[in-house]
């Protein structure tokens, strides 16, 4: 699995298709958090919002890179469609972890914040919650499910919007709403962990749906 993740990561790196989502993430983080003097929980909520968008984009880009013949070769080499799909998710997770590190540090450089361990843990949890949800959306809207990427893009935007505004349903919405209204990060650490687990469930469901549809089409 590590070899698969390494290959997927390298292919995306060499393709330079990561550049647009990376620049978007850095731009959004800079715009949303520069000169921010509020509590770090709200700052990291904004960063997590940017992560939602970029993780979905990275996932769609990563899956879309491989044409059918290449993917066939990798599937036969790896032994199954599921392993390759999990390899893609793993590679996107590595990218998201790198973005998470940037998302934790950049607001501290751009604003007068004094971070505590609870703030950094909360920032990591919030970004990973959004990364998992975004990856799930990216998978469902990837080329494995939709041949026509125009429709997939529209659906991705609808699903991302639903994740952001779906009150009481979306773990992203529940988490971001809480983070906006809290002054102490420690107070929401546990509830954010619950949302992280819920987002991991979304990602599992996203993988299962993508795998089922992908197999059905072949």
């Amino acid at each position, binding site marked *: 699995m590590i070899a698969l993740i*390494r*290959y997927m990561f*390298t292919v995306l790196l060499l*393709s330079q298709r990561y550049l647009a989502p990376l620049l978007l993430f850095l731009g959004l983080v800079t715009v949303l958090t520069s000169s921010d003097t509020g509590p770090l929980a709200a700052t990291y909520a904004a960063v997590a919002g940017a992560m939602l968008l970029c993780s979905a984009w990275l996932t769609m880009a990563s899956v879309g890179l491989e044409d059918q*013949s*290449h993917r066939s070769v990798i599937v*036969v080499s790896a032994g199954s469609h599921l392993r390759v799909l999990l390899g893609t998710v793993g590679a996107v997770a590595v990218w998201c972890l790198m973005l998470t590190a940037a998302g934790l540090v950049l607001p501290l450089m751009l604003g007068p914040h004094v971070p505590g361990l609870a703030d950094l843990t909360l920032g990591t949890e919030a970004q990973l919650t959004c990364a998992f949800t975004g990856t799930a959306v990216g998978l469902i809207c990837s080329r494995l499910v939709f041949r026509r990427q125009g429709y997939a893009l529209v659906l991705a935007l609808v699903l991302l919007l639903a994740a952001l505004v779906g009150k009481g349903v979306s773990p992203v919405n529940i988490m971001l709403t809480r983070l906006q209204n809290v002054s102490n990060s420690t107070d929401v650490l546990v509830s954010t962990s619950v949302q992280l687990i819920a987002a991991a469930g979304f990602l599992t469901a996203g993988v299962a749906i993508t795998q089922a549809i992908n*197999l059905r089409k072949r």
Partner: protein
Amino acid sequence: MLRCEAVGKRYGGGRWVLHDVNMQVSGGDVLAVVGGNGSGKSTLLRILVGLSRPTSGTVSGRPPHIGYVPDRFTAHDRISAISYLTHMGRIRGMSASAARARGNHLLERLSLVGGPNASLRTLSKGNAQKVALAQALLVQPDLLVLDEPWSGLDASAHGVLAEFIDEAAAQGGAVLFTDHREAITETQAGGAYAINNGQVTWRGGRHARSRTSMVELVLAAPPTDVRPVEVNWRTLPGVVNATRRGEAIVLRVAREHSDTVLLTALQHQWSVEGLAGTADEPGSRADAKRAAL
């Protein structure tokens, strides 16, 4: 080893691309799948390697190490050929150094133009096909499936591909390939399945298990002044190879067809110089193929 039972395939609610396919591929077999464009050859191969699920029926006995070369290997990646092969080797469980060494060896044998450090997207169709071949052979395959592997390859690579096929079969692996050209399928394959209207039929040849039932027939002009009539030996049933050895012609014939071929030879004024039952050794088959090519 690999067995297809009542396999059918259709996409969505469309027509049946394959219908009631029964096949058996054993270790050491070199088999061709022949059929026209759009007849379902590639679909059958994709089902056999596990890329596509059959709509009905079952495929059992799929071996662990499968080498697969798709019909088109369009490469847009910036990754270099040797780096790609190293990654593929790692994915197959090899160490990076072993994968790199094996990749370099295979690319050297295939004479990849541009060298192993050429990026995949700069490769021509034939050279990309060589990389596709190399990735399938990084680990000695138990089942080697090649979808029109000769298309785009130059003449020297044809010979190397024939060697690869023989090596895979000699190691006990099964080889299955498609090609449109009858000459190639007859020369390279021990037997062939034909696809027509979604039905797959065993068209002839032999499986590896009947390797020992071969006859080597050495024919020459008779000592008298009679000149024998030229015969297109390859068109006769059961003739696997026909090569010249000096003035003589050496035929390798399936045992069940040897009497008919012998009768035909005698009727055309040929004299029998030698007759022997042989095992169909892959090495000798490779030599014959190279001579034929």
